[in-house]
Each structure stands twice: as C-alpha cells, then as structure tokens.
C-alpha cells in the first residue's frame, strides 16, 4: 500500500475519474432499463465499470476490484445477449453500483472500512451463470423485498449474516466464488496508511475547466495588462505635462476600454464558475425509478435543458429543494396506474423537469400530469391545522390558497410516508429558495396536474440590481426580486387597517415605505408622486415606496461582517463607483419583517 502514500496525485486522479464515471452510471443504467436494445449505452456502462475495475486493481483496492469484477461479468452477459434487461437485473446492478460508490467514498475519506460484500456478490452471482439463475429466483425475490423496505439508496451493508446465503449452499460452483472473497486482511492496514483527507476531495472543491475557457481568460488578462500600461503611461505624460491637450479625450477612450475589458473579464470568470445544471439533474432518473417502484406508480421522467449553466454556489443549493419537489410530484401528484386509467389518462404518469435561461435568471420547472392540487382540500386542511382562520380563507384568491402549502407545519397527506411528508415540508423548500433570492410559483389544475416553477439568480456573487434613492440614501434592490416599477400619485395610495395598499390591476398590493422601515430622515417637502418597486419573493408580493429610481447596475456583493450581518432587511453591501458603500436590500427579509409586523426595534 506504499503506493497510496507516495502517489497522492495518482489517487486523486483515480477518485476524480471514478466519481465522474459513477455519477453518469446511475443515469445510464436507468436509461438502459427503458431502452434495453441500446447497445451503445450498454457498452458505455460496461466500459465505465471496466475502467473502475482496472484502476482499482492497479491501486490495490481489492474490495472494489471484487465487486466491479462481478458487476462487469453480469454486464458482459447482458452485452452478449445471454441475459435480458429486466427490472430485477437492474435492481441488482444498481445495488452493486451503490456498493461501489460506498467503497469509493471510503477511499476518499481515507478510512477503508471492512465492508461485507458477500450479500451483494451473492445477488450478482445468479446472473453470471445461466444454470443457476432459475433455481434462485425465489431467494432473489425475498432479497429485493427486504431491501426496498429498508433505505432505498443506501442498502444495509453491515449485516454479514445475510439470510440469502442459502443460495451458495445449493450450488457448489458458486459457493467457491463466494468463499474466496473472505480473506481480505490487508484492508485494516490500508486504512492506516491512507492519510485522512477530510473534505478536500469532495466533489465541489476542485474544478475542471475547459482549456478554451482558460485561454480566453488569459487573453482577457493580457488585455487588461495592456490597459494598465496605458494608464501608467498616461499618468507619466500628465505629470510631465505632455499631450495635455488631448488628455481628456484619451482618458475617456481609455475609461471605455477598461470598462469593456473588465466586464469581459468578469463574464469569463463567471463562466468558469458556471456548471451545467445536469450535475443536479442526473441524480433524478435514479430517484424517480426507485420511488415509482416503491410507490407502485408508473412514471416517466423527462428532463429538458440539463445543459443550462448556472453558478456552482447555486447548483449546490438547489439539490435538496428539487429532490423534495420531485418526491412530492411522485407521491402527491401522479396517481396510481389504476386511478389514472379510471380517469381516462395513460397508465404511466409524466414528470417533466426542465431548466431554461431567462435573462439573468434560471427557470426550473417540475411539472406532473397527476391529479393536481385541490384548493378546497387544501383550504380545509389549513383550517383544521389552525394555520388560517375562516375569515382569512374567505378573502383569499385561488393562488393564495395554493400558496398555503408553504406554511410551516403543512402537509396534505394524512399519513407521513417514507417518501414525503416527514415534517420537512414545502416551507423548507421555500426557505431554501428564498436564501438564493429566488421566487417559487405554483400552477395547478385539478385533474390535469401541477407545476412548480423556480426562478433563481444565475450567480450569488455579482448581481444585477436596481439602485433607488430613499430620501437621499442610496439602496440597491436585487433585480431578481424586482417584478416591476411604477410611478404613482401619492393620492392613489389607500389605507386598509393601518396598512398602506395600492390597487394594482385586479389585485391589492401591500405597500411598505423604505424610508420608515430603514428610519431614514424624512425631507420636508411633500411629494405628490413617488415610485413603487414591486418585489416578489417565493410566492409573496409587496410594493416598496422609494423617492427615486436611479437605474440599474451590476454590483458585487460584499458582506457586512459578522457583527452587522444580521441587520434586518439588509442582505449585504456593495461599493459604488464613487467609493461609497450602498446597502443591498434583502427582499426576503423585508417580507418577513412585514409579516411579523416588527421592525426597527433598534431605532434610537
């Protein structure tokens, strides 16, 4: 195992490559199940496993070799058409892949645990030999039942006294192969030699960048160096009073060029941080497959636009909310095949996961053609749980009723299932989306299906913002949250129960004076007209009254430091062209403040 210590680079290479191969594998396997005759796909899968096997045997990871070898055997038989692609076969292969992942993770964590692989190998073996397959059909069935009742994605591996070990006894040929794996003595030693690596190798800490992008970046840097030299030269000239006449003109040209080059540079750097949303999406075919089997539903998952790119910080954050929404779509949305047939729909339901760009946002939608959300049922539920009062309900529009699902403590399923409704409800999804300055919207039609639409900013480091003036203080509002701006006569504001509102088309919009919220000194002059910036966060809308709109600007977000980070209603700050600091308004925070009704507790 000396190799491990000496050749970290080799090990890192192995881990990166294996992780990539395995990530893709899940997706491919699920695809293969749907299109068993796709030879290319099968060959690709075979090659991946083969590569992992080769590399791990080179590095001496015996356990990994053993399991990949057996998996490869099964795949090889599929390839030779000696075995048919069936859900049962796929179950076993997927399980084997899970074990492989587990082992690779162990290696990554630097702690090689002695894992019991006999159980899974026993499951694979029947598929390797023809004669044996028939006789083990029964034990196989029980095994599968056991696993699905356990935890889906990570099957229990510790239990070594596998009840299915009856199978080797029946067939001497396999008993041999099973017996051999046991002596794996070198592993504990291995655990010691591999240094603890912690998180350094976890997927998102290292980046693979397209060489072309790196070259582009270098070009941009080259240009900016040129411009810098130009600035230095101009400064020298200016000091020595040369070319004084043309200085102004030259300088303005230079300013334009620097502006252009830096924004290009900024784009390039942002692009490097961008990764395709596929990274998150490719987990879903597997999840959907497992879930639909567990739930006894037939579901087709269609993925559109997985090549859409967004900032890695956003990619890291949207995984969990999306899994939750997908689970919801399968559990609550899509009906069982019988119900679907009875409703005159095709047996299998469709779930469409799509991603598209829209300006500086990415729109992710999860749409199912299930039973939709019944507003009446929803309203009743909220009432029963004491989340709303009858009066409140009476005044709600259809959309507002749908938004009730976001209330903490709401779950429409009577009984919490393994799949969804475990208390981590939609409010968690909403909180996560809000954290990203995103908006979430529900569309639903009873009997036809429902759709959850997420609108997220592409990046969190630099944002487009709307600069506004509040009684001579400048604030920046993230454009992602701005829905529209209006210029209105102050006379058209109305008071409803002490709350200022604005009639906007067919709805009534609650208003908030930023001047009051932020305790800005009011100027004497009475204003007849003011501007209203309508912001939306998740499903909430609110109008902010400001004195003037100053324009749109791209700003880099700076933290306020740990002492002021939690200032209510403020998300951070940015430095303006003149060197002053402008505060960035936190739309989610403001809406929270508005809801809780408490604001400015510190106002002196």
């Amino acid at each position, binding site marked *: 195992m000396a190799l491990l210590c000496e050749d970290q680079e080799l090990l890192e290479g192995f881990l990166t490559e294996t992780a990539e191969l395995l990530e893709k594998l899940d997706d491919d396997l699920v695809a293969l199940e749907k299109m068993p005759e796709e030879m290319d796909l099968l060959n690709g899968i075979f090659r991946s496993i083969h590569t992992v096997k080769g590399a791990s045997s080179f590095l001496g990871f015996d356990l990994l070799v053993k399991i990949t070898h057996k998996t490869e055997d099964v795949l090889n038989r599929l390839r030779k058409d000696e075995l048919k692609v069936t859900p049962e076969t796929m179950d076993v292969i997927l399980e084997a892949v899970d074990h492989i992942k587990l082992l690779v993770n162990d290696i990554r964590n630097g702690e090689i645990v002695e894992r019991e692989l006999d159980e899974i190998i026993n499951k694979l073996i029947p598929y390797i030999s023809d004669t044996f397959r028939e006789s083990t059909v029964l034990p196989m069935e029980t095994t599968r039942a056991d696993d699905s009742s356990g935890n889906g994605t990570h099957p229990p591996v510790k239990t070594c006294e596998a009840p299915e070990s009856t199978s080797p006894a029946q067939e001497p040929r396999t008993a041999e192969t099973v017996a051999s794996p046991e002596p794996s003595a070198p592993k504990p030693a291995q655990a010691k030699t591999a240094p603890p690596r912690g998180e350094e190798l976890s997927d998102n800490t290292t980046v693979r960048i397209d060489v072309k992008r790196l070259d582009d970046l270098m070009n941009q840097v080259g240009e900016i160096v040129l411009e810098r030299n130009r600035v230095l030269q101009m400064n020298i000239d200016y000091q020595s009073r040369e070319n004084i006449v043309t200085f102004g003109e030259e300088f303005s040209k230079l300013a334009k060029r620097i502006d252009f080059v830096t924004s290009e540079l900024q784009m390039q750097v942002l692009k490097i941080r961008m990764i395709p949303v596929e990274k998150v999406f490719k987990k879903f075919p597997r999840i959907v497959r497992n879930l639909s089997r567990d739930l006894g539903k037939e579901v087709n998952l269609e993925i559109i636009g997985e090549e859409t790119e967004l900032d890695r910080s956003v990619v890291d954050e949207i995984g969990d909310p999306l899994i939750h929404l997908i689970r919801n779509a399968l559990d609550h949305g899509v009906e069982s095949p019988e119900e679907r047939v009875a409703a005159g729909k095709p047996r299998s339901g469709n779930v469409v996961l799509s991603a598209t760009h829209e300006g500086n946002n990415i729109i992710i939608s999860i749409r199912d053609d299930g039973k939709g959300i019944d507003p009446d049922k929803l309203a009743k539920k909220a009432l029963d749980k004491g989340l709303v009062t009858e009066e409140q309900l009476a005044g709600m529009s259809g959309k507002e009723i749908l938004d009730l699902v976001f209330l903490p403590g709401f779950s429409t399923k009577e009984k919490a299932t393994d799949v969804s409704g475990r208390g981590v409800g939609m409010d968690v999804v909403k909180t996560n989306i809000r954290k990203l300055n995103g908006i979430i919207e529900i569309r639903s039609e009873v009997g036809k299906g429902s759709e959850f639409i997420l609108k997220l900013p592409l990046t969190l480091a630099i944002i487009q913002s709307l600069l506004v003036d509040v009684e001579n203080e400048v604030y920046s509002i993230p454009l992602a949250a701005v829905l529209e701006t209006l210029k209105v006569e102050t006379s058209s504001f109305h008071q409803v129960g002490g709350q200022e509102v604005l009639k906007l088309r067919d709805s009534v919009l609650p208003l908030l004076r930023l001047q009051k919220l932020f305790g800005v000194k009011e100027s004497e002059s009475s204003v007849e007209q003011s501007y209203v910036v309508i912001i939306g966060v998740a499903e909430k809308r609110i109008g902010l009254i400001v004195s003037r709109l100053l324009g749109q600007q791209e700003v880099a977000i700076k933290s306020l*430091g740990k002492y002021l980070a*939690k200032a209510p209603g403020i998300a951070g700050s940015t430095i303006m062209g003149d060197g002053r600091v402008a505060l960035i308004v936190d739309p989610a925070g403001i809406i929270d403040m508005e809801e809780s009704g408490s604001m400015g507790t510190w106002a002196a």
Partner: protein
Amino acid sequence: MATAATIKAEESQAELIQLVSFNLDREEYGVYVLKVREIIRMSNVTRVPNTPYYVEGVINLRGKVIPIISLRKKFSLSDKDHDKQTRIIVMDVDGELMGFIVDAVSEVIRVAAGEIQPPPAVVNGGVEQEYLSGVINRADRLLVLLDLERVFSQSERESLISSTL
C-alpha cells in the same frame, strides 16, 4: 535576597507596552498598539438601518466593508461634529476589522506593565467597567486603558450578531 520568582515578576513589571492614545471628550484613552490596524481620516459613512444606536454605519476600506462604531455614542457622551482632528481607529476585534470614531489620535506611548493600575471601582464619565482594563496615572496625565474587544457587553454582542427581529 530576591527570589527567582520576584525577579521574574519585576521583569514583567518592567516590560514595556505600547499604546495608541486618543482623545474623547475631555479624557485620554489608550488601546494596545498591536490591536490597531490603521488610523484613517473620517470618510463617508453609510448608515445601516436597524442597528444599535452606537453603530454609525459602514465604510469602504480599500474594497472591504467594515462597521464603524461611535465611541462618543457608546460612552453616552455629548455629540460633537466631526472635524479635521476626527479619526477612525481601525482595530482587529475578534478577528474582524472594526472602526472606532474618536475625537483625535495623539501619539504612541510606551508604558511599563507595572504602571498600569487596576481600574477604580467607579469611573466617572459613564464608561462602563467591563472594557476598562486599567488606568495609567502619570504626573501630568491620566490615561484610561480600553479593551475594545469587550466594548460590547456579551448581550450587546449577541444582539448585534443575532437578528434583532
């Protein structure tokens, strides 16, 4: 005969400590020079809403946004307009940079550790006990040694950090 222990104690008594001294109202204060990052002139402070009264706001310190505390407000002294003498002392407070507005910065002085006396039980001027780490009594001046890391009481620090909602 002095024992080894007392010699050592005497040595540490003689150890020189460097302090930055500054003025606030009529008093003179000192802070450890090692905690001071820089001293800058007053610049444009952006007010941060809904923060404690003594938080003046934030400034841009070469691309970094740092909070600014008014020591006058913190010490409940009467307000005074900023003038040419007004300075911001940028200090390292618990690993974060923070600026403190003072009336004027005078000098860096050296004092022997032995010169620092424990703070008297009651100090006039309203400065609370907690962040007084001592006083230096010289013939012509009285210097109050401040520990600005503790300028916020525990509860204040929590409320500064945690949301005020």
